[in-house]
């Protein structure tokens, strides 16, 4: 592959390895091999950004289907006639509803994927994907599965600072000893059979230990401390990290103490957990959709409780997760077993 091909599209930071795999799949399609792709990621992790980048590097004509709410009309999922094009389908988790009779459009879509002669590249919410993988073996329809990775602190720094000029911002050190910890949580990510596995692990700051013994100050820059903190709170999620940055920055100054830890204590009963898991899996749902899917009679009351706990937000009639609460929500829902 040439250097020009290896270059990232404008505006895209990170995802180099993932984009390389897309390029390989497109190249294979050029030579007659159709390997449909599923891109899966958490909410706010950059699915749409990544799909837009694919649109830029595509060597064939592309057709984009972007779903923004639960699909009710079969015509919304019709593929273009003919063959040889690249069909980009964003937010495919809107093709199903977790209810009796709610898989009809998804089944039609999957049939269209396997029977079409286009290369189909899809994006999915990771929690919907895991559910559909167990319930209807959806992974069998997509020979290539790409899980968008968590961003490291360095990648988050590059992503966030790309919006600012050099020396535009002032990083001031007011970090507490706790933020200068010798041992910090840092998951190790590696790829096994096209899947990214993240194993919880600890990073030991040997430089700090050395500095302690030599009675010298630590060498870690203030900005590194800030981005490490943002990365830890955001769980490596670029969308959440950007939002956290915007909330923390007091332009042009930012200090470690400006970055607030997630103060949420998630207290949910089982029914609220299930309702929240539906919003987590689908990105955005309206109240009538939640009534229908959850089959609960007290959806309105439960939504108010979730809003009051600042776990969700309401925008134009759609209930969405509050990005800041994402990691707290995932952790709480995993404990209750409503997400797999």
């Amino acid at each position, binding site marked *: 592959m040439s250097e020009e091909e290896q270059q990232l599209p404008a505006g895209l930071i990170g995802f180099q390895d993932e984009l390389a795999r897309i390029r390989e799949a497109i190249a294979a399609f050029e030579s007659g091999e159709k390997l449909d792709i599923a891109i899966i990621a958490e909410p706010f992790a950059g699915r749409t950004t990544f799909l837009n980048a694919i649109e830029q590097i595509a060597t064939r004509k592309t057709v984009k289907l972007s779903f923004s709410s639960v699909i009710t009309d079969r015509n919304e999922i019709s593929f273009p006639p003919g063959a040889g094009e690249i069909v980009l389908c964003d937010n495919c988790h809107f093709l199903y509803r*977790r*209810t*009796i*009779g*709610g*898989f009809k459009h998804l089944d039609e879509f999957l049939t269209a994927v396997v029977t079409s002669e286009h290369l189909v590249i899809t994006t999915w919410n990771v929690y919907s994907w895991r559910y559909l993988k*167990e*319930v*209807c*073996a959806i992974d069998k329809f997509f020979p290539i599965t790409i899980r968008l990775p968590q961003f490291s602190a360095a990648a988050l720094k590059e992503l966030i600072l790309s919006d600012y000029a050099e020396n535009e911002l002032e990083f001031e050190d007011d970090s507490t000893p706790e933020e200068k910890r010798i041992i910090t949580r840092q998951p190790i990510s590696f790829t096994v059979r096209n899947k990214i596995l993240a194993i919880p692990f600890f990073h030991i700051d040997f430089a700090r230990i050395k500095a302690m013994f030599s009675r010298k100050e630590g060498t870690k820059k203030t900005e590194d401390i800030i981005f490490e903190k943002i990365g830890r709170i955001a769980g490596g999620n670029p969308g959440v990290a950007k939002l956290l940055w915007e909330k923390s920055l007091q332009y042009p100054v930012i200090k470690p103490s400006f970055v607030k830890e997630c103060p949420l204590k998630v207290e949910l009963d*089982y*029914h609220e957990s*299930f309702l929240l898991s539906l919003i987590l899996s689908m990105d955005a749902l309206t109240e009538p959709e939640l009534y229908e899917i*959850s*089959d609960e009679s007290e959806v309105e009351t439960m939504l108010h409780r979730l809003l009051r706990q600042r776990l969700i937000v309401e925008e134009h009639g759609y209930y969405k997760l509050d990005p800041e609460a994402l990691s707290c929500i995932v952790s709480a829902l*995993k*404990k*209750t*077993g*409503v997400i*797999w």
Partner: protein
Amino acid sequence: MVETDLVDVPLKTIDPGTVLSAILIILLAYLLTRVIAYLLTWLAERAGGRRITVKMLLPLLKFIIYGVAVYFILASVLQLSSTQLVAFSGVLGAVLGFGLKDLFANIVGGLVISVEQPYQIGDKVRIGGYYGEVTDIGIRATRLVTPDDNLVSAPNYLIFNQAVASASSGTPEMMVVIDLFIDPDSDAGTGLEILKEAVVTSRYVYISRKYPYTVLLQDFPYYRRLRAKAYVHDLRHEFEFMSEVTRRAWREFEQQGIQAPRAPIMGELQTGNKPEAGADSTQSTTTNKI
């Protein structure tokens, strides 16, 4: 010498102070087990899927604490020599053999349950005709809470002479079987599909490669049985899961024109949602695992 020692033991060493010390040790052991039980239960309830793993430590810890307490009473308080200990054990053996054999059998049964773990705290089990969640494995008995919220104390020795069925065997996931009965003239294929979707969309279901689900159809003379087998991710949701799937499936059956079995002409079976499994005729079983 042995005889002299035996006679000397109660006279020389067992005074009010000794008795008080022994009582104090037993009291401390009891309080310690209560505190540990409380802490482990608190921890287990916050451990999500690892609830049962945490709770399984409890019976073993109880036996260790009480064992140490007994040892302290015999060795430190009564200050028995090794010869006296042997003699005491003989006497204890005779007492247990004649008078307290049931209690002893329960204690041994409790030890076997702790080590062999035929069931654990948090499991749903059937012991001695009772079905429920194991809430405690004590020195003498296992406590179950039945679905009707009755507390049942089943003696531990029952594991030696009765079969014990554990539905979850140490994991919070548990298989639940749901039977629905439909009229033989109704569309069984649609019924199976509805039941399958009612199961996989349930809020309580847990599906993975290790915990798959199955939907089966079987013909009987006057009805067809649709059977779903699936796991709940917490065995405490067993009955809610059954109820939710049944309710949602029947609501959809009614919309699709699938009916409950009618009363047979000869009156062998009554109309109902769950007749007794009678004589099978033709059996056509379909496994539907998507």
